[in-house]
């Protein structure tokens, strides 16, 4: 598993997923007449390249447009503007039938496990539905596949006949994951796939995802807010803020030297599993997330940025390369002086060294 996060030289060839200036805006409707009073710019100009074999993590504050991005990528939501290309093919140029065929290639795991499972279907029916739809295997073969998938996600055959409400939250999420991998798709979009899971099951699932990834040459795009998952699992990261990607880098680069001030604050806010740890020392962002219906002028982050200058409120900078990170910020040098937790001594401060890791102390 040591090769885990290193990229398998996948840079060559066209990206499996290429997103350009993607926008998804929703009208805000108010009052009894539901008249439009504004626009929510949920996704507002995202560029993203995902190469075959990548595990591309998308992180960002709640409500910054991550789920909307995934749903738009899959065509579940019509984009307002921009293009999405799968292996060079524009999603828009496909007929409905071709799009449906594509859907066995691209799968999604939704954020809320319970609501993504039909309450009237058993676990067996849920997982076998795509198999019946896209293959012509016999019932028994499909059932064998279902049982093996259940086993993969750590559930025994006794769960075959259960209904979603008879499962715990984590078990529901595992069923959703089993459904997503059932057809061996080539690209899986995962929306917070492990947030409902405890660390142990989470590790099991991540291991499983990694195994099937190597076995079947899969690519993942994964939304998560759990930075330790990103660190241990992903190969690349894009940090989103208010409908835009503001920093993009390989995992090692991002954690070793986060460039954008927002990225730094994000890394600093991870709760530390140690009751003695004094969280007052962390970087706390002033103010709250602005609304996507009224994004600030210039850099979206400047009103909360500790190192902002006047110029930041005038123009939203384009991507620039700094030590391998692609960053949309003009104050990278100043931001680095914030003493982000990426640097070595800060790491010592943050790591729960006062907690004798259980079991190791005897």
């Amino acid at each position: 598993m040591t090769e885990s996060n290193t990229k398998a030289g996948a840079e060559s060839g066209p990206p499996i997923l290429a997103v350009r200036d993607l926008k998804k805006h929703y009208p805000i409707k108010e009052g009894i007449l539901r008249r439009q009073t504004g626009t929510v710019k949920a996704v507002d100009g995202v560029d993203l390249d995902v190469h075959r074999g990548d595990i591309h993590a998308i992180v960002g504050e709640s409500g910054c447009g991550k789920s909307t991005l995934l749903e738009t990528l899959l065509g579940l939501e019509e984009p307002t503007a921009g293009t999405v290309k799968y292996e060079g093919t524009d999603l828009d140029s496909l007929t409905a039938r071709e799009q449906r065929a594509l859907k066995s290639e691209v799968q999604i795991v939704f954020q809320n496990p319970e609501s993504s499972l039909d309450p009237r279907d058993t676990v067996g029916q849920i997982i076998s539905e795509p198999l019946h739809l896209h293959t012509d295997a016999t019932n028994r073969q499909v059932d064998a596949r279902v049982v093996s998938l259940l086993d993969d996600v750590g559930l025994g055959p006794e769960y075959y006949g259960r209904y979603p409400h008879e499962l715990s939250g984590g078990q529901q999420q595992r069923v959703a994951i089993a459904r997503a991998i059932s057809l061996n798709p080539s690209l899986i979009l995962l929306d917070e796939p492990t947030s409902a899971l405890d660390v142990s099951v989470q590790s099991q699932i991540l291991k499983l995802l990694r195994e099937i990834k190597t076995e079947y040459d899969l690519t993942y795009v994964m939304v998560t807010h759990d930075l330790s998952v990103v660190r241990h699992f992903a190969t690349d990261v894009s940090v989103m803020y208010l409908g835009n990607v503001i920093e993009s880098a390989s995992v090692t680069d991002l954690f070793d030297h986060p460039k954008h001030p927002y990225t730094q604050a994000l890394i600093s806010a991870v709760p530390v599993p140690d009751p003695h740890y004094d969280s007052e020392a962390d970087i706390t962002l002033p103010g709250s997330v602005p609304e996507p219906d009224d994004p600030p002028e210039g850099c979206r982050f400047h009103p909360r940025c500790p190192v902002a200058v006047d110029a930041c409120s005038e123009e939203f900078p384009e991507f620039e390369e700094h030590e391998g990170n692609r960053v949309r910020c003009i104050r990278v040098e100043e931001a680095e002086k914030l003493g982000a937790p990426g640097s070595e001594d800060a790491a010592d401060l943050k790591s729960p060294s006062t907690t004798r890791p259980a079991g190791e102390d005897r």
Partner: protein
Amino acid sequence: MSEKLVEISDLKTTFETNSGTVEALRGINLTIDEGERVGLVGESGSGKSVTARSILQLIDSPGEIAGGTISFDGRDLVGLSSREMQRVRGRDITMIFQDPSMSLDPVYSIRNQMVEAIGHNRNIGDQRAEEIAVEYLELVDMPNPERVLSSYPHELSGGMKQRVSIAMTLGFNPDLVIADEPTTALDVTVQKKVLEIFKDVVEREDLSVLWITHNLGVVAEFCDRIAVIYAGEIVEYGTVYDIFDRPTHPYTRELLRTIPNVQRAQEELRVIEGTVPNMADPPDGCTFHPRCPDAEARCETTRPESVDGDHHEAACLVHDTQTNDRE
């Protein structure tokens, strides 16, 4: 000094399923003092949500509370009529559900739902209820409460829905809040804020909280005491310091060992070997013995005594909290 608000003793909850009777809770003892924040942690499927639903008497047939008592403010909740229970829910005890999209009704606007629920539980008019709704939405870091109020649940992001549930729940002004994985959909910066706010409100209004989570980082920051649950039993109970500094039960230690560290680069992700037992057919003796690194022969046959749930104690035949604490 502190009064006991909740005292659960020997709670057993079972479900009939196609594959037999699932013993989801197998005799749980737990106390929550007034103003205290208790964390309930354990692996997926260990019985955390069922504990929460049992306290609120939300176990539908074919499930049932097969035994035990849940005393709340001196009153046993088990066996209360559904009408009496309705008065307890919302006013005295409220719950933040694990999947927020299931607890919000998709056909009504957030305003409708919040105003009605807050108005009902606080016995106040719509206008006052709306003020409270706005106040709490602001508290949980929602930048534009107006837009949120006029939205329908599907128009909100996962984390926003979760914060709506938190705001609504706190807005009820209950005595006990049961929070089932309330911050799983929140990113770390928002989670941090919400935790701080939760702490503030809880301290200001002297609420008690049962905080269900698998995130030990959150527990360490937020809770006073921790109950570790495994396969429907509390295997260890103690203060946060007891649990983090002097974990006794091998399961607790394994659990702490699996915490990934953001700072340390890509080492192998740790797992607890084996899986949670099938609760329709739990193993004899100590339920953890098949996965336990320290298991002895007696662990396969003798069931350890369950913990009382009021001082540091582990349900283990091999290890003892007292010797551990003295070390």
